[in-house]
């Protein structure tokens, strides 16, 4: 009996994606939204945020942190681990965020960044060894943010990878300091 085991980092798929129209579209959107829009909070008083996500960048859920750099820009990352009936999906999504428009505690934001996903499929039966794969892509999100002591975001998202571009949504709830 022949038994297969796959454990790959899909480098070719990643390279294909980096050359793909999907990637160019995301970068283009990010550049298109980066100029000429007024920004409300130029000196953040509470630059750090820790939040939980429902759906969003981490699949079913995630934990995120971001730090506002100078009012307009922020950097952050969301990580998640999803047990899926024996499968395990790990995701990590670092991103660069930007406030597009807003006043007071209310803003419209956009963020984008790469995303890495590792899917581990242990075998539930003795005659199979399961499969594991690690793949790279990118995501771009845009939506509404309320930011005071309490953080709330609701947004739409486009996730792009070697298998295409998929729409997705997310809700973030957390606090700032």
């Amino acid at each position: 009996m022949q038994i297969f085991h796959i454990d790959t980092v899909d480098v070719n798929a990643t390279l294909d994606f980096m050359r793909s129209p999907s990637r160019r579209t995301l970068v283009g959107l990010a550049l298109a939204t980066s100029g000429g829009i007024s920004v409300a909070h130029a000196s953040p008083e509470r630059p750090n945020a820790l939040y939980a996500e429902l759906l969003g960048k981490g699949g079913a859920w995630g934990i995120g942190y971001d730090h506002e750099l100078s009012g307009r820009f922020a950097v952050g990352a969301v990580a998640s681990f999803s047990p899926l009936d024996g499968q395990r999906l790990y995701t990590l999504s670092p991103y660069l965020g930007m406030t597009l428009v807003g006043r007071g505690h209310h803003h419209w934001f956009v963020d984008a960044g790469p995303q890495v996903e590792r899917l581990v499929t242990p075998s539930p039966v003795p005659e199979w060894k399961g499969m594991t794969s690690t793949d790279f892509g990118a995501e771009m999100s845009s939506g509404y943010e309320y930011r005071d002591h309490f953080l709330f975001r609701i947004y739409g998202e486009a996730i792009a990878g070697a298998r295409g571009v998929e729409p997705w949504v997310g809700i973030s709830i957390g606090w700032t300091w």
Partner: protein
Amino acid sequence: MDLVKHTISVALLAFASGCINLGADAAWTPITQITGDLAPQTGAAATTALIASPDTVRIVTYNIRDGGVAPAEIAAAFAANPNLARADVVFIQEAEAFPEEVAPRIATLAAVLDTSWIYAPARAEKTGTLGDAILSRYPIDNFEVIDLPLATLKRQRIAVGADLHVGGQILRVVSTQLDTSLNISNRVRQLHPVVIDLPTAALVGGDFNTNPFAWQDGIIPLVGAEAIANTDQAPMIDNYMSGLGFANPTAGRGNTEVRYGISSRLDAVYARGVEIVGGGVERNVLLSDHYPTWIDVRLVAL
């Protein structure tokens, strides 16, 4: 309305339970030991199509969706399609039978196609039953049914098996339909008891429901993750079956189903212990959300 209530109750209970679990494996059971409303039914072709030295045997699998359209319409579609018109064996999923009708609808289809047949109900559905079937121009016997491990809050699925007698040789054939929103681990577990003890020369066909998603609690397809991660279950089931020596001749032939605008490769006929000659997917037959999928095999001396 019942479907809505069922969906809502499944969603609430699955979220509460946190994951989808499977029941215990069952064993293949001769149909003579199955009684009651779920007792399988069989019938013989009007003319015995004993083909002494066949060149190839064509096997089609087709999920006709919720009982399908009128059997005569399915038969007409097969007759009008050159690749389906010469089908020797047909695996059907989601066939239905009703006590108020004189025979299972599969019997009507078999009469038009002039095949022998077995219909095995998986569960009660509406006022009758829903299950899997095998139709064959070749003699078939030694019928068995196996209950697939029942998934949490899902409905019972089965596989039906038979011995196909071709030119003095015996080929074990199995028609099955796996559950819908399972993750790959549970899908492999559900398929495992069906295939693990089959003889070397065997065909396993049907609707494996190998959708492209990973599922959160059997409810939420992680659509976003699918763009990046390799969550497509079709190549994973291919990989599992290839480890057991089964090949899927239509793995590279694209999707076999379209629903909600999502194309998926759900259907296949896996073959072992035979020479594979070819295969295809008939996307011009639009009587179901699935497309008939076929392979040609040539029996070899084992």
